[in-house]
């Protein structure tokens, strides 16, 4: 890790990032096309869903015309594409407000939940993973293994429901639903989000910890670790300074995967705790066939996933000098 390294390494990263951003844009385009096609196959459209069971054909035709749904699908897609290229996600068909405003209400909530969960789960996962890698085969390792494996195995709705039963219904410590509003103070918001954060942490921490353990354990078997030990380097230094930079690639990759799940995959947690996040908004958009909203949510999830993956790669390259040379 010489001082010259960053200067040398910074250059090869830019083309990589540029290339990845380019392919990300193509991916987004493909995803939007796929979503548009698939949601077009769903029975019913926004007009029918809005009017519901008690709609008459004339009402549906009128509303369809109002929403512009009577135009060919390709025209609608092209128009949407042109608008999004200008940065305008359009108007929600069902809520009659700009998609931008709806997302602006929900996205901060989702980011906050994902952020807090990451703050709790990433250090916890590192701790668990490293501790069990160091004690491989020991009692602590086995205990942590059992704990993490059972966390992976338990579905999140069970964790959430048990959490609510114990902490809110029986003990009355925490609210059973997450009420997020502007006038709530930070401590109130944190308190009402405690159970969702706990549940999501349980869900994501296990996989990250398992990956950390595997990566660190793999490095600990390498000859250079043995050499360092023979030289008398303190064990803590071996783990943190010698093996971690080598293990960081797969770890960050696993973390990026888990964290991207926090944004879009939190549907069940959002449902149980009634959390006003993006994932439930997207489910809403599907059931009401609100195409502009659905597309916008999908774009956000896809973009978040791609940028987390890109970030993971960049971190892995920066941490590992050998990757920089290529």
């Amino acid at each position, binding site marked *: 890790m010489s001082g010259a390294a960053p200067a040398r390494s910074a250059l090869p990263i830019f083309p990589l990032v540029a290339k990845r951003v380019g392919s990300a844009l193509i991916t987004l385009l493909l995803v939007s096309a796929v979503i548009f096609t698939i949601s077009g196959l769903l029975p019913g459209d926004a007009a029918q869903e809005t009017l519901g069971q008690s709609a*008459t054909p004339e*009402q549906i035709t009128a509303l369809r015309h109002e929403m512009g749904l009577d135009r060919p699908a390709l025209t609608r897609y092209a128009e949407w594409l042109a608008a999004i290229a200008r940065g305008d996600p359009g108007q929600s068909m*069902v*809520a009659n407000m700009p998609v931008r405003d709806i997302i602006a209400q929900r996205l901060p909530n989702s980011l906050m939940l994902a952020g807090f969960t990451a703050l709790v789960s990433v250090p916890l996962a590192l701790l668990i993973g490293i501790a069990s890698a160091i004690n491989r085969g020991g009692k602590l390792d086995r205990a942590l293994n059992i704990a993490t494996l059972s966390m992976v195995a338990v579905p999140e709705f069970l964790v959430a429901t048990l959490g609510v039963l114990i902490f809110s219904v029986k003990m009355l410590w925490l609210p059973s*639903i997450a009420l997020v509003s502007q006038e709530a103070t930070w401590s109130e918001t944190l308190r009402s989000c405690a159970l969702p954060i706990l549940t999501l942490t349980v869900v994501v921490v296990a996989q990250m910890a398992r990956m950390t353990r595997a990566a660190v354990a793999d490095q600990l078997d390498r000859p250079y670790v043995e050499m360092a030990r023979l030289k008398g380097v303190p064990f803590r230094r071996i783990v943190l300074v010698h093996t971690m930079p080598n293990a960081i690639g797969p770890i960050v990759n696993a973390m990026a995967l888990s964290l991207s799940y926090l944004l879009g995959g939190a549907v069940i947690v959002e449902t149980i705790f*009634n959390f006003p996040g993006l994932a439930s908004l997207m489910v809403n958009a599907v059931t009401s066939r609100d195409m502009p909203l659905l597309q916008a949510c999908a774009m956000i999830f896809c973009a978040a996933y791609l940028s987390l993956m890109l970030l993971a790669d960049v971190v892995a390259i920066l941490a590992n000098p050998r990757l920089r040379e290529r």
Partner: protein
Amino acid sequence: MSGSLTRRGAIAAGLAGAGLFALPARAPAISVPRRGGSIRVAAQSTSTADTLDPAKGALSTDYVRHFMLYSGLTKTGADLVPRPSLAETVESRDRITWSFTLRRGVRFHDGSELTSADVVWSLRRHSDPKLGSKMATIAKQFAEVRADGRYGLIIRLTGANADLPAILSQSHFLIVRNGETAPRGNGTGPFRLGDFKPGVRTVVTRNPDYWIPGRPYLDRIELISIPDEVSRVNALLAGDVQFVNALNPRSTKRIDSSSGHGVLATPSSLYTNLIMRQDRLPTGNPDFVQAIKHLIDRPLVKRALFRNYATIGNDQPIPPFHPYYNASLPQTGLDLDRARWHLRRSGLAGVRLPMYASPAAEGSVDMASILQEYGSRVGLELAVNRVPGDGYWSTHWMRHPMSFGNTNPRPTADLIFSLFYKSDAEWNESGWKDTSFDQLLVQARGEADEAKRKALYGEMQAQVHARCGSVIPVFITLIDGYDRRLKGLKPVPLGGFMAYQFAEFAWWDA
């Protein structure tokens, strides 16, 4: 006030008077409503389609929100009798032309006075197809809506309809300000809008200038929704919300076991029915229909599916607690021998037929399974096709020889019959066509004499019961859960949450 509704004649006047005097007399004995308090209420449904426009209300959350913010010309109470509300008098000689006199000095939340122009605007806008009003079909009956001076209103209908006051008591016909194309909560209702975020929450605060002095009692209500039923119960028990609706009968045990919470059961005319298309075979065969009607174990449906939170039905849509209920009809029950006999007569023994059931029609999947079981005992091979709730109404409902429907309570017998049983009705679910029924329907709609009306509706119930391809095993009781400190609640058969109108009457005792 009781004499102002001419259509109900002497009977209604007596009823209304009794109701009015009974309430204040009984209330002090329990406890006097107290001002103040802030509660949070959780309904089951929400979406980004949540609206402040009464005409577009589609879900329970919408109805509750609209009744908090707006008032209507009339109001229907627990006895299903409509009474004047924003209208001071409602009069009609021929039940075609109706004249209303508005209450004076009623103010919108923005301070402007309610006049006939506001009412004319509010009623006329339903006829605009671009609006997408849920009541567009009913508003077609309005041949003319015009102001008669500053406080007078004339509605001329296309045909006689004695039920106009009941129709106007629905949340969709609540009154908005003149000229508002997209209402934003400015009404004459008991609460003023504080905060509204579609799909998230609605906050309202007490309207101190509400036109009924003393009401409402609560200072603030936050209306949210928790779509997940278990979460809704948990939130109630954890004290995060004080009033919830649409509970599963299985949850009542949990609520009853908590000393601080209670169950508010509302027997309603909500039903899930099995639809047999009369224009297709084999379901168009009258003997087949009779066989199926005798294959339903109604007490089992009531007990096993709804934990007794249901009222046994008799294949016609008017429930026993309705004023027009025809009690003289024989109850159809499980009778395998009769079913076998009808099936033999129909020549359809051994026929294989799918039933389309879906979670969208509450309880339909289990009902179909029960029917399948009894069908197999008489040699009828019925298959249960369980389809997703998403898109069920547009793709499966009424589209197959056998499917399930789900019909919400309607304010009048006429609406139920005209929407679902009239020959040319859009949702004539079973495709049943009967000219004598249609004639009775029109006759009853314009009939002023209450006793004659009841007889006419009784005859229509008998016809639907005997000949229509709709099986109504039970009427489903609506279940709300509440914090016992919330007082003033009572069941109103038109819907949960006191037919969505609790906000005006509920008070907090703590």
